[in-house]
């Protein structure tokens, strides 16, 4: 089932928590929702899952509008909310049975589904305990189990890996990747490596608006108009080299990295051959380049660029 979101808006008082956003997600796609705190990620997810009503815009899931057939559509959605709220006083198994029944699974299949979820989420050892007695990681697994118990076509996961240890994070990511092959998955997070590791597509939201949409590679390329190059140039006086670098037409900013070592960080202008210019300059002055490397812009820089630019405007 695909999700199509058009001009979605949600206001809390005068503040627009979600401001006219549109995007769509296809089956077999894992969409990463990225954004600073309070950007509107959770609110968008709450609207997609039917917990909250939008003020404007439409949510169309599998060709049907959420407003018209909310209850049929809810059956196709598995949701793991932020902070993973669970009934702490209930035993794990009872809770999963309860969720299965609420989602309308046939009486005969309930136990099969519960058993399968216990296996997939690896909660076999803890299944008879009360949820309140479990560690945070296991609670997160129970949260995932309840989201997937009715085998939904759509999974909405709000920060699914918070509170897990590194091993568990890897496992959960692997699980999400596997599920994402046939399901439509939206997951929100502010852990950037997580998005790169799990998501096919990234949507960056800031102040209720979409500021970027694409794969992690394409986002990186967008930001890579100006490369950052690290160079070490020897056999010359460092201030002279510095000035020479600055005078190159393809260089916008030069910075010392290490005063002793003649290391510089050079930021090139977009669409110029900065590396070649530096090389030619050194040849001309008989300086020797002992190091030159392209410092790759990582997703974090992209993220910071996109989300702070807007704020300062």
């Amino acid at each position, binding site marked *: 089932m695909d999700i199509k979101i058009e001009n979605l808006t949600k206001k809390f008082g005068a503040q627009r928590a979600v401001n006219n956003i549109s995007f769509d997600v296809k089956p077999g796609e894992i969409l990463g929702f990225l954004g600073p705190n309070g950007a509107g990620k959770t609110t968008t997810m709450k609207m997609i899952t039917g*917990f909250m009503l939008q003020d404007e815009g439409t949510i169309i899931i599998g060709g049907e509008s959420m407003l018209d057939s909310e209850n049929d559509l809810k059956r196709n959605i598995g*949701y793991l909310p932020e902070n993973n709220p669970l009934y702490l*006083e*209930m035993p794990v198994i*009872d809770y999963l049975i309860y969720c299965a029944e609420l989602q309308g699974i046939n009486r005969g299949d309930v136990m099969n589904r519960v058993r399968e979820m216990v296996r997939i989420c690896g909660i076999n050892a803890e299944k008879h305990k009360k949820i309140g007695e479990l560690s945070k990681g296991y609670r997160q697994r129970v949260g995932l189990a309840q989201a997937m118990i009715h085998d939904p076509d759509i999974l909405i996961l709000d920060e699914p890996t918070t509170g897990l240890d590194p091993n568990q994070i890897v496992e959960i990511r692997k699980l999400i990747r596997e599920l994402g092959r046939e399901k439509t998955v939206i997951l929100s997070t502010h852990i950037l490596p997580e998005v790169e590791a799990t998501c096919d597509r990234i949507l960056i939201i800031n102040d209720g608006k979409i500021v970027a949409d694409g794969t992690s590679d394409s986002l990186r390329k967008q930001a890579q108009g100006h490369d950052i190059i690290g160079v070490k140039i020897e056999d010359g006086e460092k201030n002279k080299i510095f000035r020479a670098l600055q005078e190159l037409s393809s260089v916008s900013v030069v910075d010392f990295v290490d005063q002793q070592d003649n290391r510089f960080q050079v930021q090139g202008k977009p669409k110029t051959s900065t590396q070649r210019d530096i090389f030619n300059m050194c040849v001309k002055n008989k300086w020797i380049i002992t190091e030159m490397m392209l410092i790759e812009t990582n997703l974090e820089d992209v993220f910071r660029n996109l989300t702070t630019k807007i704020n300062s405007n």
Partner: protein
Amino acid sequence: MKLIWIIARRELSVFFDSLIAYVMLILFLGFSGFFTWLYGSDIFLIGQASLRSFFSIAYWTLFFFIPALTMRLLAEEKRSGTIELLLTKAVTDRQVVLGKFLSAFLLIALALAFTLPYVITVSSIGNMDTGGVLCGYLGLLLMSGVYISIGLFASSLTRNQIVAFLTALFIGLFFHIIFNVLAGSITGMTGKIFNILSLSTHFESISRGVIDTKDLIYFLSIMVLGVFLSEVALSKRNIGNA
């Protein structure tokens, strides 16, 4: 309907797992038993094979116990955030509210069922008015329904259980005695309206053995109103960050 029952069953199991149900049953049976059989204007003092004293005690004990049962129904889910999980399952707000109402109602019905030995004992002492007793139980059930719907509404307003408890008691107090007092002290149309609003008037007429449609409509309409308002309060999440 099936979904309402699934929700009600879980709520009931919470009542029993958390000992609330046992405490409530023991206190209710203890209080009503003590005042029906041992102390005050008990059966032996009156000297009649009648459960009148039991009904008037239960009238007061239920008034205090029901808010204690209903206070957590929605407030707790709102505080812990589980309401979000519940409402994003394939259930409607109405089914959730009705399921919670049903769970408290069934628990009260169970408590009343445990007083059936009183009926058997009294009927063996003398000539008991069976119809009157049945009507008394009906009155208690209807009254419980009203206070549960009020309690549920109070619980839907807040995420704090104590606030829910006190709000329920406060609203309940109007129906329980204040309207009655006002009806007695004000004459004319206003007095009549207060008399109609007073729960005790309707409860007394039913527990005397007279089932009037007016009384039934009164009880049922407050129940429906309470459940409806709880649903409205739940849907308030759509306009704010509740």
